[in-house]
């Protein structure tokens, strides 16, 4: 069973590494933020898998921390950058 968990974790980590291409290339800031959201979700999935693998239930708290703060970045981008537009026009 452990080997499955390791394979899944490595696979998800490779997914993150693959997604970095979009961070490098992404033409707009929204693209990059989108990729970061995907990284956060993938990280949560890895943490869930590690919870089963290491049998340490407190890892769920790390996942929830990522979880409840994920929205903060998006609201930050939308609100902070919206004001910029209002200033320049």
């Amino acid at each position, binding site marked *: 069973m452990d080997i499955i968990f390791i394979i899944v974790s490595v696979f998800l980590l490779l997914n993150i590494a693959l997604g*970095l291409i979009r961070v490098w290339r*992404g033409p707009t800031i929204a693209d990059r933020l989108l990729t970061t959201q995907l990284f956060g979700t993938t990280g949560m999935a890895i943490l869930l898998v*590690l919870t089963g693998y290491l049998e340490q239930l407190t890892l769920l*708290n790390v996942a929830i921390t990522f979880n409840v*703060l994920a929205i903060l970045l998006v609201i930050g981008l939308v609100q902070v950058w919206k004001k910029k537009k209002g200033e320049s026009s």
Partner: protein
Amino acid sequence: MSVLIDILLAILVIYLALQSLLAPRLSQSVFLFFAFGLALALAWVRLGAVDVAITEAAIASGFLGVLFLDALRDFSPRSSEEQKNISTVQNSRSRNSVKSLLLPRLSLVLGLGLFLLIALEAVWNIPDGGGLAADAEKLLPQSGVEHPVTAVLINFRAYDTWLEIGVILLGLLAVFAVGKIQIYRKPIPVVDDILLRQVILFFTPVLFLFGAFLLYFGKTGPGGAFQAAVLWGAIGILLHLGGRPIFLLIPRWLGQLLLTLGLLFFLILGFLFIAGGATLFEYPPAYAGVLILIVETLAAISIAAALTAMFANLNQMKKEESNKIDSTN
């Protein structure tokens, strides 16, 4: 087999750390840094330090995230004309100040060199035989909590933690100083978008509850004041972004009280039992559990207030700066 995860994580962490410094464009480095925070949190989990992983997750993806996005806005060119203005202002500034910068740079280099020497000396003299872990484990029943990390942070090395809270307050003072204390003017208009408002309204109690859970859970497992503080600070930032800047809504003295409460109470508590013959920051074992919980709650409130104030200041300060550049040209 599990070494595969570790190797991959190590490569990822080092690669992201290097690239977030070396990336040619600012937005690339900022978002690579977010990925770096995620990889680092996973690395801390693999190292068995769940406390640090929670803090890293909260700081990197929450607080630093919005700070960086705010900074990125100020450094990104609004239009080609404005960009030219900004660059000319910067050029004239740097031309005037080349000579005056020499002394600070020299002292910075000397200070860093000295720091490096001291750090090397400290590493050289690390005592072998596991350090103080065994002593800490032995004294754990007297500390009032069951989680060794919390016991060390709030009880055994309370002095350290007290100074850390002070450091955050000092950071806030530095932000005040840079912003020339022109604070909390011009409130952001309340968001009229109904979905955005509902999401802020939904996540505020969730963040508060989870922060309180982490604070209380610090007694028995990974969690504690700093983790809770970042989550509560995220509430303040969310409300600020939603057009309800907390420090504008409450009276000024209350804001100042919130900012200094944790530091003050910790200090009073530290000196309180000296009269009874105890040493600095020593609590009577019978009340230690309750006292630690109170200290942690107040410290978390103070740190959360400081983080919120930092973001609110930096967010409003730069607006002033850009207006100034506009008006001078």
